[in-house]
């Protein structure tokens, strides 16, 4: 989240798209209720009428997978309205804080010129070969002056400036096209446009709430890009009640992402080293963005300090200037190779992967194409699972339909403690790091994962010290000392924060980190979270800011709760908050100021309110651009770094019931297709299907399907469908139905509802159904897994699987 849960109460318009917060974030939904009591409008854009829709002022139905067309239409509406009613928009923000003014390479061509493609495409359209499906992005780049600073046209009239290219790109997204693609009635769509566009006025705010309905597409990242353009045009980023807010689905998925348990990044979102990084210097050069613009702070210029401090945290005294601080102890991936979830299971299926460790995850239920992933597990030599229960993953060898005797995987199942049987911190969607305490004992010999990791690491370090092995020093040079018996979680938390190694004191903030090896920090983003006791004496655990419980709301009373727990980065509650003020440092929204320049503060003035994105003076007084994490200092309306185009373009899901109404290019042209033979076609599978969750259950079911109360509340997986489809198929509410895709079939209960309606587009009718995915074959409540049906294809930029739009057929069982 750019903002945070409590800040939703400040919003004037909230649009939930690709998310259903009343269902999946019910307790946090209370802040939306507060906003509504203030008169805010709630818009729910969803293929079906949901619990969120039930509380919305406007419900707009949308066929799954057509967000770009929908938001593109909104962008088109707003760009036209800016022409007619410029006074209703914050043009200073657009001009000064975004790259709308940047001039683009004159050779750039977009989908309007190239039948749905951008300039630089290699490979023919609908090509399957992964090596050919990519773009040369040179024509998407900014024109730069002799100092390398992007050229700008502050009038935004130049036909090559980003603003004009965006206009040209989105003028094709007319309300009629939106209707033909999304199936949204035109009047409803226009009501959404009018309502949300009203947040573009100076002093008004609008927020976008999204979740996996946005990301789980072959163009999920571009869906978010479309939200970005929309929110920048409305000046909604950085302000209270604004932002683009990813509602994260797990208690610590924000934290686990910050610690970068992902192949392409290492803690603190540093890029993973690759084969060509033959020295630390080369790595730093490759991964550090540069800017010659004196007005751009370019925060990532500090990459060298963060990587060196990370290496010092991991290898301690063994990380020295003479060995590049142990840079080569880190593994290097092959540049350009993908090691993400789908690739991982494909490699497992190929027999490349022999051993698997799983910590509180259940891919046998949650992974796409679940039968394929279960079969891949059969090929492992060994598997380690840590969980609080038996899971489908741990039990894959005794799933229905297989003979355990034929499965040679050796499996270790480790009994874990649950969240209140141990001590530590978690980070929520708001980026709040909150401390939890041990409140009760675990069952039997259950242990916490920290203990397991500590014991394993010590054993491995001993084995490599005693026996050696290839590059044994990568392991036995680790700085790993958290106590002899149970590892001290506070020692770990302090290591994450980092130390000034010359004094032995905890570093106060990441601005104190250095590239010369005199500081350590296990994750620079969390620097400032655990400080010397005298720097935070009033916290329940002195020094540990995550433990704070002070409800003081700060100077502006906008619900920042700046002294409740701690928030990355440096306790900044709303990021990009320098965009919430004008060039003189006065808040756009005087009623809900996030920060405000106070000339009387200190010697030369200072900021009141939230922790600003850097303490420099306002732009008119020599301060820098507001988007400090961007190399050019301004936010990207035009995004030349994306794999699949600098602007979002509508494509159909990999499996789609209709052709692309926008262009000849049916699918995203660059995502990797693993199994073309498993693509379902509309003649056999005419119905669009999405998977989703219900309030009463959770993810792969490990944490709810052994619990009577929630099982009783939601006892079986179901398939939601319209009354029209049910009638067509002779299905009655409560019947068992077979839902079938090109990957397999499942048996669910039919939930026939008025809340799903067939989509009528261009004269054709498209049905959509929805299935919930929490079930599997292990536990107190068992049932078929929805992911038997989902495909092994992923987003072009992120490889997130396309769970939200694929084709099925449905029949009575």
């Amino acid at each position, binding site marked *: 989240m750019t903002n945070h849960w409590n800040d939703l109460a400040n919003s004037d318009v909230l649009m939930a798209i690709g998310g259903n917060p009343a269902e999946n974030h019910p307790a946090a*939904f209370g802040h939306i209720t507060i906003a509504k009591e203030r008169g805010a409008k709630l818009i729910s854009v969803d293929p079906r009428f949901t619990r969120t829709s039930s509380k919305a002022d406007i419900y707009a139905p949308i066929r799954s997978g057509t967000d770009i067309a929908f938001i593109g239409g909104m962008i088109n509406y707003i760009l036209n309205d800016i022409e007619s009613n410029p006074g209703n928009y914050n043009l200073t923000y657009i001009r000064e804080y975004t790259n709308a003014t940047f001039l683009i390479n004159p050779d750039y061509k977009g989908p309007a010129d190239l039948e749905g493609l951008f300039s630089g495409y290699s490979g023919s359209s609908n090509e399957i070969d992964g090596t050919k499906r990519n773009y040369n992005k040179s024509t998407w780049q900014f024109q730069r002056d002799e100092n390398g600073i992007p050229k700008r046209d502050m009038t935004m009239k130049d036909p090559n400036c980003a603003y004009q290219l965006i206009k040209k790109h989105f003028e094709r997204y007319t309300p009629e096209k939106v209707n033909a693609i999304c199936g949204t009635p035109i009047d409803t769509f226009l009501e959404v446009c009018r309502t949300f566009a009203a947040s573009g006025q100076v002093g008004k705010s609008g927020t976008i709430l999204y979740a996996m309905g946005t990301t789980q597409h072959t163009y999920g990242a571009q869906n978010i890009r479309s939200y970005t353009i929309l929110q920048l045009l409305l000046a909604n980023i950085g302000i209270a009640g604004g932002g683009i807010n990813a509602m994260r689905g797990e208690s610590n998925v924000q934290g686990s992402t910050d610690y970068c348990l992902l192949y392409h990044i290492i803690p603190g979102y540093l890029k993973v080293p690759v084969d060509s990084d033959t020295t630390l210097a080369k790595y730093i050069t490759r991964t550090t963005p540069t800017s010659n613009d004196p007005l751009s702070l370019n925060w990532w210029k500090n990459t060298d300090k963060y990587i060196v401090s990370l290496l010092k945290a991991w290898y301690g005294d063994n990380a020295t200037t003479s060995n590049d601080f142990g840079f080569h102890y880190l593994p290097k991936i092959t540049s350009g190779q993908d090691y993400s979830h789908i690739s991982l299971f494909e490699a497992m299926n190929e027999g490349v992967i022999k051993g698997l460790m799983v910590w509180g995850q259940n891919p046998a239920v949650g992974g796409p194409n679940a039968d394929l992933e279960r079969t891949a597990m059969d090929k492992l030599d060994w598997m380690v699972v840590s969980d609080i229960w038996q899971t489908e993953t741990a039990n894959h060898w005794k799933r229905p339909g297989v003979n355990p005797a034929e499965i040679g995987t050796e499996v270790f199942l480790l009994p874990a403690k649950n969240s209140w049987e141990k001590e530590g911190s978690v980070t929520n969607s708001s980026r709040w790091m909150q401390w939890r305490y041990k409140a009760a004992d675990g069952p039997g010999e259950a242990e916490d994962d920290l203990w397991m990791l500590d014991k394993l690491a010590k054993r491995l370090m001993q084995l490599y010290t005693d026996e050696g092995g290839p590059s044994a020093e990568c392991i036995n040079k680790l700085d790993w000392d958290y106590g002899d018996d149970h590892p001290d979680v506070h020692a770990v938390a302090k290591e994450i924060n980092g130390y000034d190694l010359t004094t032995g004191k905890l570093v106060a903030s990441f601005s104190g980190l250095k590239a010369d090896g005199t500081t350590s920090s296990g994750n620079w983003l969390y620097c400032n979270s655990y400080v010397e006791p005298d720097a935070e004496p009033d916290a329940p655990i002195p020094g540990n800011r995550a433990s704070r419980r002070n409800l003081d709301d700060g100077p502006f009373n906008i619900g920042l709760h700046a002294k409740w727990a701690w928030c990355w980065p440096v306790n900044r509650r709303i990021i990009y908050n320098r965009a919430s003020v004008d060039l003189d440092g006065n808040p756009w929204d005087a009623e809900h100021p996030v920060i405000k320049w106070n000339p009387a503060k200190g010697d030369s003035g200072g900021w009141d309110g939230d922790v600003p994105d850097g303490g420099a003076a306002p732009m008119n007084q020599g301060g820098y651009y507001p988007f400090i994490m961007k190399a050019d200092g301004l936010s990207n309306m035009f995004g030349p770094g994306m794999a699949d185009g600098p602007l979002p373009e509508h494509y159909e899901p990999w499996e789609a019931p209709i052709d692309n109404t926008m262009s000849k290019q049916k699918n995203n042209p660059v995502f990797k297709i693993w199994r073309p033979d498993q693509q379902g076609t509309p003649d056999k599978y005419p119905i669009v299907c999405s998977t989703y969750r*219900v309030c009463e259950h959770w993810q792969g079911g490990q944490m709810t399907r052994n619990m009577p109360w929630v099982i*009783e509340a*939601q006892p079986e997986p179901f398939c939601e469908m319209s009354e029209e489809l049910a009638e067509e198929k002779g299905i009655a509410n409560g*019947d068992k139905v077979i839902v079938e895709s090109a990957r397999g079939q499942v048996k669910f*209960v039919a*939930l026939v509802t008025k809340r799903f309606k067939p989509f009528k587009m261009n004269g054709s009718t498209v049905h959509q159904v929805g299935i919930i995915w929490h079930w599997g074959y292990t536990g107190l409540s068992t049932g078929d897994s929805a992911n038997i049906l989902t495909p092994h294809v992923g987003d072009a930029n992120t490889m997130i699987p396309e769970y939200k739009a694929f084709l099925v057929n449905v029949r009575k069982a």
Partner: protein
Amino acid sequence: MADKAILYDASKCTACRGCQVMCKQWNENDEVIPTEENGVDSRNWGSYENPKDLSPTTWLKMRFTEVEENGQMRWLFTRQACMHCTDAGCVQVCPNGSLYHNDLGFVAYNKDTCTGCGYCIDACPFGIPRSDRNLLTGIAKMDKCTACTSQGYNRIEATAAEADAMYESWKGELIPACVKACPPGALKYGYRDTLVAEGRARVDYLKSQGRGNATLYGENELGGLHVMYVLEDSPDVYGLPVSPSISAATIAWKDVIQPVGWAVGGLAIVGLGLNWLVARANINKEAK
């Protein structure tokens, strides 16, 4: 004496069912795991609304109603649990005073003396009480929502004066589990008079927002309910009885037949005996 009440605002409820589960958590209604052999319907019957019915261990459940008018879809949520009526059919019909109004105005019951006769079940205009008759022993006990305040099930075990004092000084600590659990603040607990005023104001607001049929349900029904609903439409749209009343037979039982019975004396024993007979008859029936 100041009656307390619960105000449920359907216009704020998202049906997350925190109340439904927290009721079980607090009241330790965790005896039954949902299997058919345990007498609980563990199948989904084609609805978000599970389990399908109240039971001796499900005192509160949320109801979901889909309404479509002029192409406008609405998904209405409401609460199904004891309404704690002032004119309470169950209290009137209870043969030995096991059901009664406590000092806070809620319908309380004493499980020690409940004979499980089941008359309260038939007498309730909202169909709330449930009984778990054991076929072998004939023992049956009625169960229902206690508003977490009735004797023996105390979240608050106190006289009205003490409860008022605690309510004031503990600032809402002692509120029913469902109310405490409600994330969007759709449930409130407090003095009934205050809540009636709040409910009326909310209804006025909803009417001003175009909900012409909005109504405060329970202000006057059955002498005034101690669980009142702010509804966005008329009660029948939510499946609630528009003018709930106690049947004449129920009144006759309480006012005419019961006194005669008491006059005969030893009714408790007779009641238990009856209980045995009914239970045995049922067992025989099942056996056949």
